[in-house]
């Protein structure tokens, strides 16, 4: 299980406007592509260098492929990264100000303290 890799997916998609749209429209295909082509890039290194060992487990891959942000919370993905990216993708579908943010809170309402550990 890799909270780090979940976070890396959220982080790298969020900062690329084209990827944000691609993930919104084709989540499963985007996750498949990202895991194959992007997951092992070392972001601060020369592009010719990469890691060899990073991959999602089945639960993580499915949570991302289905836009299941309550599951990402449960898995310990960083809540700020998840929130920021999902606002970028779905706030536009809600007419009321903060409509998406409040729905997001409601869908997590079954969680009591302590929340899932986000340490990586």
């Amino acid at each position, binding site marked *: 299980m890799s909270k780090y890799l979940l976070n890396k997916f959220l982080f790298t998609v*969020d900062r690329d406007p084209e990827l944000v749209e691609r993930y919104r429209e084709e989540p499963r295909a985007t996750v498949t592509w990202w895991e194959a082509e992007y997951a092992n890039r070392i972001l*601060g290194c020369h592009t010719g260098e990469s890691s060899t060992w990073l991959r999602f487990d089945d639960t993580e891959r499915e949570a991302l492929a289905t836009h299941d942000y309550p599951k990402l919370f449960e898995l310990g993905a960083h*809540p700020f990264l*998840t*929130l920021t990216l999902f606002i970028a993708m779905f706030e536009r579908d809600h007419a009321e100000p903060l409509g998406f*943010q409040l729905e997001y*809170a409601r869908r997590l309402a079954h969680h009591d*303290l*302590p929340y899932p550990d986000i*340490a990586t």
Partner: protein
Amino acid sequence: MAELVAVIASTHHPFYYRASTSTGDDRPPFADEWVRKVEAFRETLTRARPDVLVMVGSDHFHQLWLDNMPQFLVGKAPFYDANFSNEEREFGLPRMFFTGQEDLSAYILREGLDAGFDLAFSNELRIDHSITCPIITLRPQNDLPIVPIYTNIFAPPLPRPKRFVQLGRTIRQLIESWPSDQRVAVIGTGHLSLELGGPRQFGPHGPDPEFDRRAVEWISSGDLEGCLAEVTLDSLHAPGNATHGFMDFMLMMGVAGEGQKADYVDTYDLFHTMEAYFTWYPNGGGRP
């Protein structure tokens, strides 16, 4: 030696810029009062007549990432670009540009290392809304050189609250020993209780008004001892999952000093968070 002319601690609310600049039907009902409070707060910095701003904040996974995460980082660059595309997208924040005060950056790094803080540094740092928000609220003309200092309140494992206080005390000592005739203000931003990406987010108030009340009391009275006795890395989960940003307020209490009452205190109860604004004048100079 340089003079520390003001110590300022503030929340950094990324929606202030949009709220304060919107007009007509887009202007939220709380905007006018918010602007009034911010402009009064701004006056507390203006009165201190600073030459240099040391800006304490925290990167929100913009430039700093989990493959190489510093706990405390000092920017040392002649210039800083500021704000990121996702801050433009979500908050409507403008792109900004700052001049750096490299001599003070270098002094804080050298002397800070010698004082026992293994500070990371960056020669090319793009800064985010934890530092640009207080410039927008406190110095919108953005005419002063800065030294940015980032703390990790975001990606565990985090330094403990006591370490933030110690760094605050050290920052003060370093400013007051900097061989310069500059007038320095330190501005640090954090949060009171805050929830982001969790079930208590975006409620009608901050997630824990009782914590906020106690936090304002600790800060305004300079009660570091009481604050440190109660606040731990574990305890900060209870008021809201992003409340570790309160440790930047504790750092600023360290700059201001144990038992030092704030000269200016204001709060504003908004949806989602309690805004909180504090100013100390270490040598009394800015008091009306």
